[in-house]
């Protein structure tokens, strides 16, 4: 049996996290999701330190990254991931409310793999999150381990 590689969701807002999980529930991929509440937790998870020091080794299949988070914001997390040889291959999808051009430009400049604006309408939101989860978590072939 192959190990199920987790989806990492960085979302400081518990309601957004719950709604995202509810969306993924419909496709039964919610149990693969690990939720981090700020940028520092994301980095702790990726580097297996702090509360994640005992977790199973291995990179997540994808990171869904909110831009605006306490402590360390999304762009800083993105910069850290993309400048670390071991973390660089992880696909990073920016999932944010911001449609500002500067955010888009900076994210892509730092190496984001996708940029998705959270729709206000719930059905659209659900569809978006579901499709993202299915695409990156199931359809997309992740980079080989150890690369």
């Amino acid at each position, binding site marked *: 049996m192959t190990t199920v590689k987790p989806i990492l969701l960085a979302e400081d*807002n518990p*309601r*957004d996290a719950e*709604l995202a999980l*509810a969306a993924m529930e419909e496709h039964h991929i919610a149990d693969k999701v690990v939720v981090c509440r700020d940028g520092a937790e994301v980095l702790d998870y990726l580097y297996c330190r702090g509360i994640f020091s005992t977790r199973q080794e291995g990179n997540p299949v994808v990171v869904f990254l909110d*831009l*605006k988070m306490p402590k360390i914001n999304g762009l800083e997390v993105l910069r850290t991931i993309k400048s670390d040889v071991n973390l660089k291959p992880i696909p990073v999808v920016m999932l*944010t*409310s*911001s*449609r*500002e051009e500067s955010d888009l430009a900076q994210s892509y400049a730092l190496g984001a793999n996708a940029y998705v604006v*959270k*729709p*206000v*309408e*719930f*059905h659209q*939101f*659900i569809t978006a999150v579901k499709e993202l989860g299915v695409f990156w978590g199931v359809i997309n072939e992740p980079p080989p381990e150890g690369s």
Partner: protein
Amino acid sequence: MESVTQEHPVAPALAQSEAGHDSPAPTPKTGRLMEWLTHWSIERRVLAGFGLVFAGIVVISAISYSNTAVLIENSRLDTKSHELLQLLGSVGEALSAAESGHRRYLVTGDESYLRSYRTLVEQMPEYLRYLRGLTNEEADQQSRVETLERLIARQLKAEADAITQRENHGYQAVRHLALSGAAKNELEQIQRLMTELDSAEQRALVLRVAQSAGSTKNTIALLGLGALMQLLLLASVYFLIHHDVTERRRVATELQTRGELLEAANKELEAFSYSVSHDLRAPLRHIDGYAALLSKSAGEALNDKARRYLQTISDSAKQMGQLIDDLLVFSRMGRQDMLRTTVNLDQLVKTVLHDLRLDLQGRTISWTIQPLPPVLGDPAMLRQVFVNLIANAVKFTATRPEAEITVGSTNGSSSEVQIFIRDNGVGFDMQYVNKLFGVFQRLHRNDEFEGTGIGLANVRRIIHRHGGRTWAEGAPDQGATFCFSLPLARTLR
């Protein structure tokens, strides 16, 4: 702070009136002159200043030139006078040498005493020619020379006669002549005349020396005055330039301060709209999301009324989301940098109609799209204008069995093109025409026609940024025409 808003030409006048307070008694005349001067542009002031300096230099040069010419002329005349005086001396000496030689001959009969006499006779025409040449500019001296010529001729003739008598008749015949001289009277007159010539020339010399000295003094004084005048003028030109430059510098500093303030305000506005776009959206998403989750998990247990309430909550959240999006677009339209390229409006209208095709399903619309001229502007912004106006026309003709929508242009003037979008929809009352283009202004209830009231405000903002105008005509139930003008390529700023 108020003075900052003043136009540049007024600012120096202001500074002038302030300066007027400092100095207790400026005469009204100088005040007016200064005011008049300060109303001039810097170029005119500099030009006037240098013009005055130039005129001063020209006048002083002219006077100095004429003075110098007088000096040169005087010096030439002086040379002539000195030559004349010297010549008179030589002539006098030669005459007396000849006269005494002649008398010795008369006494002794020794021919060698006649040598100086003969030399004189030989040289006299030359001496006289010189004399005439040196006095040809003075009438008095000239007439004296003429008299002198006659007298000398008579004297020489008398002496020649005496010599002939001595040769023919011996010493006794000329004894009395040898004692007193052959032409005693003439000789005296000649001496008197030569003294006159001499003193007249001396007097003229003295006069000319005085004149030259006066002229030199005059020139020096004039040059000094000129230098002073030029210094004064240069100083005033400097003052005027300095005044203007100081003023410009002050205005530039003010402008810079204002620019910095404006930039700060703009940054704040950006932060605000960022926060609007990010933070206000989240709760709306939650309202809609949880309403949807609630209706899903408790849907069976809810009655129709409760389901309708939930639906209203969702709809309201969506509407507010739309409002925020539109408002953000509106705010971005004001800040965004504008492109300036040639826009093919025909092509643009085609793409807009293609994009709207989903909204047009199930509708019967008779389109009239006239050819439009190409304009200079921002393609994305102008596209927004056409999207808003055409979507409006489509929306407000929804109640018509067959909608008629016309897009066309009229020739406004040589500097602008006017474009209109006409429909046969519900129209509007002209008394509300001023509210049409305002933000959040709507002429219809939401249950009649949906909308956020930002579309036309956006149209106006975009057209204004292109340097054009917007207006509308219509009547209730008789359709509406929305028009806007765009400046032609060469007048677009």
